[in-house]
């Protein structure tokens, strides 16, 4: 019950199902307190199993699944104990419950693979109660004197072919900031988001068509809790998951509560995505006329160039000639005309400075532009025996610009790379870091191993979604959907047989004799002392004789002989309390014997120089 309660952490109470699960859990806990008889306890165990199942449908991640498994095993052990009515030792109970679970596995596998999936329940963004560090909705580099390196994890991604993407493709976009007030770059409201553009239910068929060709570059993402429903992506993938949608400005939103860990699966899209073609609104050129006069005049000076691409090139040349330095400790900029200060005097800053200054310059030059924040690079992790993955930390956070070029759509420009970077700083260092696995502290190493497991779980287990299942069934049945019922029935029958046959075989196999094993161990222990039973000698007689030879062994040997006789020949239920007591006292006496044996061996060595 405690495990279940622990497993309920992360259940979203706003969900109907979550509320039901919590209610059942509370009910079971209360019932456990007042249950006196067998019926009551049975009810508690059954409720616990039910809650496990409900939780599994809502919290399928690796850690909750492990907790659910533990709770299910405990519930089964309780049920077995209740139904058998015997005082079974807990180890045996646990083993039996695991056996029951193992017997259910084939059937579960059949159901998992074959039974048609329902679409996930309409998921609404949950309350953003938890403040999580990371990206910010407002990008205001001027107020940040020193960029604090936050090393907490942000997201992980595994690729279908287990190869890291090339460095220039490691820009993982999350938020798009379009509103500029002269100082801050703000993000559009989530509620303003339009209808799903790409990757919604409508494009499922298209995404499925690409399944075979692009399976090699499948991406499985695991995003840590954040303040946004927007999740990292590469800007060029699609998904069949109806909970994922690409907003017009190019954010990928996962319609699940952002306060929990989220996993999703992306597939590369063959064509350019709609957000890149989405023409800019008036917002993309708006620039407060009162702020940053020097910036405005510089930008307008490029406005005469006819080709927007030439304006971008001019800006680039200007930056590169300006001896800008990339520095995470630039000092705060003044409240007014902060970007002027940065561009013309300080010339030191980090990605936020460069992205916002460049985007503002482009707007002044008449090129629609905006700031995108997300992650750059990441660390390629190869866990022991697990699937390798790219690890993104908050310290990998980055900001860059996007400009609208007619005929090309939105193009990524990263002005930070134009600055000369100090060692181990800046985007160049970040991409270089990403290329090689890093040796971290032991804790970091452990964490990465766990994440490796977690990734594997997400990849092979959680990502078997409706589209994958449909592809599998399509391959299996070739469109004869009427045969699905037959296949499910046949599969269930096979699963049942697979569960029952080992059970039967087990029953026919003779049980391993614990007492005989213990006896063999005792004889083995005495042999080095030159103590061997004589022909036809009983254990009591042998032990007595041995005790005569080595008096230090007398007491434990007497205990062991009596104990063995009791276990082997007395009328007792082999699972009963008396048998357990005898086994316990055997263990204790054997421990004493081992201690006494050491001194006996010493004595033997002293006698035989």
């Amino acid at each position, binding site marked *: 019950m405690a495990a279940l309660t622990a497993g309920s952490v992360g259940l979203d109470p706003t969900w109907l199902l979550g509320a039901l699960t919590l209610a059942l859990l509370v009910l079971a806990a209360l019932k456990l307190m007042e249950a006196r008889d067998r019926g009551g306890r049975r009810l508690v165990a059954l409720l616990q199993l039910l809650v496990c199942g409900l939780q599994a449908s809502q919290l399928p991640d690796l850690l909750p699944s492990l907790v659910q498994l533990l709770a299910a095993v405990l519930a089964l052990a309780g049920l077995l104990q209740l139904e058998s009515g015997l005082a079974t030792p807990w180890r045996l109970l646990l083993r039996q419950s695991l056996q029951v679970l193992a017997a259910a596995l084939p059937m579960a596998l059949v159901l998992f693979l074959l039974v048609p999936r329902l679409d996930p329940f309409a998921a609404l963004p949950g309350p953003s109660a938890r403040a999580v560090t990371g990206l910010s909705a407002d990008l205001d580099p001027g107020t940040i004197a020193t960029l604090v390196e936050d090393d907490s994890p942000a997201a992980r991604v595994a690729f279908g072919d287990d190869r890291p993407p090339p460095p220039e493709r490691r820009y993982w976009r999350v938020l798009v900031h379009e509103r500029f007030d002269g100082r801050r770059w703000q993000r559009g409201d989530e509620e303003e988001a339009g209808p799903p553009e790409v990757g919604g239910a409508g494009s499922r068929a298209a995404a499925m068509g690409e399944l075979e060709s692009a399976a090699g570059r499948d991406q499985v993402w695991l995003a840590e809790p954040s303040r946004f429903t927007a999740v990292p992506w590469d800007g060029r993938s699609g998904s069949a998951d109806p909970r994922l949608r690409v907003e017009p400005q190019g954010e990928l939103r996962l319609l699940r509560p952002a306060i929990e860990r989220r996993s999703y699966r992306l597939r590369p899209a063959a064509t350019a995505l709609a957000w890149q073609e989405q023409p800019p609104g008036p917002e993309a050129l708006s620039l407060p006329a009162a702020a940053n006069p020097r910036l405005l005049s510089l930008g307008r000076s490029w406005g005469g160039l006819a080709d927007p691409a030439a304006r971008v090139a001019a800006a680039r040349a200007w930056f590169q000639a300006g001896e800008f330095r990339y520095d995470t400790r630039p000092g705060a900029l003044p409240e007014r005309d902060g970007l002027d200060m940065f561009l013309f005097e300080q010339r030191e800053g980090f990605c936020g400075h460069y992205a916002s200054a460049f985007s503002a310059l482009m707007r002044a030059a008449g090129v629609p532009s905006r700031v995108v924040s997300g992650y750059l690079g990441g660390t390629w992790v190869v866990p022991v025996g697990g699937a390798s993955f790219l690890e993104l930390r908050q310290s990998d956070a980055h900001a860059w610009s996007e400009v609208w070029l007619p005929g090309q759509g939105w193009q990524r420009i990263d002005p930070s790379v134009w600055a000369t970077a100090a060692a181990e700083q800046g985007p160049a260092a970040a991409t270089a870091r990403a290329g090689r696995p890093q040796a971290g502290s032991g804790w970091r190493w452990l964490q990465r191993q766990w994440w490796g497991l977690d990734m594997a779980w997400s990849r092979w287990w959680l990502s078997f979604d409706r589209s994958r299942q449909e592809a599998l069934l399509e391959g299996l049945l070739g469109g004869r959907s009427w045969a699905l019922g037959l296949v499910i029935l046949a599969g269930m029958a096979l699963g049942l047989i697979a569960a029952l046959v080992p059970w039967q075989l087990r029953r026919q196999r003779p049980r391993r004799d614990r007492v*005989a094993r213990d*006896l063999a161990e005792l004889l083995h222990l005495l042999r080095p002392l030159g103590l061997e*039973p*004589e*022909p*036809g000698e*009983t254990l009591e007689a042998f032990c007595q004789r041995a005790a005569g030879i080595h008096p230090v062994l007398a007491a434990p040997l007497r205990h062991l002989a009596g104990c063995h006789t009791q276990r082997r020949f007395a009328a007792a239920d082999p699972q009963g309390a008396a048998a357990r007591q005898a086994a316990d006292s055997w263990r204790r006496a054997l421990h004493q014997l081992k201690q006494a044996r050491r001194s006996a061996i010493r004595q033997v060595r002293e006698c035989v120089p």
Partner: protein
Amino acid sequence: MAAWTDLVAGIDRVLLGKEHAVRLALACLLAGGHLLLEDLPGTGKTTLAEALARSFGLAFKRVSFTSDLLPADLTGINVLDPATGSFRFQPGPLFSQVLLADEINRASPRTQSALLEAMAAGRVSVDGTSHELPSPFMVIATQNSLDQVGTSPLPESQLDRFLMRLSLGFPEREAERALLSGQALDLGAMVAAGQPADLLSLRRRCRRQHCSAALIDYVLDLVAASRAPERPGAPLSPRASQGLMAAARAWSLLQERDFVTPADVQAVFAAVVEHRLDPAGRGQLSRALLEAVDAIR
């Protein structure tokens, strides 16, 4: 019902220094078997028999077997009752609870056979009428191993009917010293430790003693070893293995346990099987058999 130690000690005070033999005899009584005492004269065979009978307050009769003893002398005869003019059964000495058949090898085979049949069936037939023997019923036969002239030794097939064969042997020096200095208790002064009904309930308890599968395996291995073709001596019959189990059960009860162990089997083994393996032997074959079978299991 007195404790075991009292029971054994009671007989032991009569029969000094023979504790093991006394226990075996008691086990034989509890197992419901018959006992063959084979020893030199004057070693206390009769005393043991009478002490056994007295310890449970059993009716005791003694018959000295001679070559002219007839079966009817044992079973009893139908006599004409002059008062009623009809025949009335006059029970013989067989109708007791403990019968001491002294020097059984002196009697003719015919008489021996009548005794052994009565022992096996628990009843006697006289002139076509069957008469039940009293219960409990135990025969303690003695056989003098020295006098071979004019005797008919029991055939092997009949020896099988005795659960145990014991020999008391000479007492230890100290025991004999105590005997000579008059420390032995007089039989007449012996107090019964229990009633015949106690013996019957003890016999029931005996039958309930737990024999685990491992123990039964041990007994089966012993019996199987005796039946191996290369082994000397007669193979043990199922009656022998049954008797072995019964005696081991009784022995385990005497050890104040409620289950039987290989040690119990070994304790009674020689007494139960030696006379079946080798009528003239003195325990050598049974010991070899015990050593041939692993008792640690």
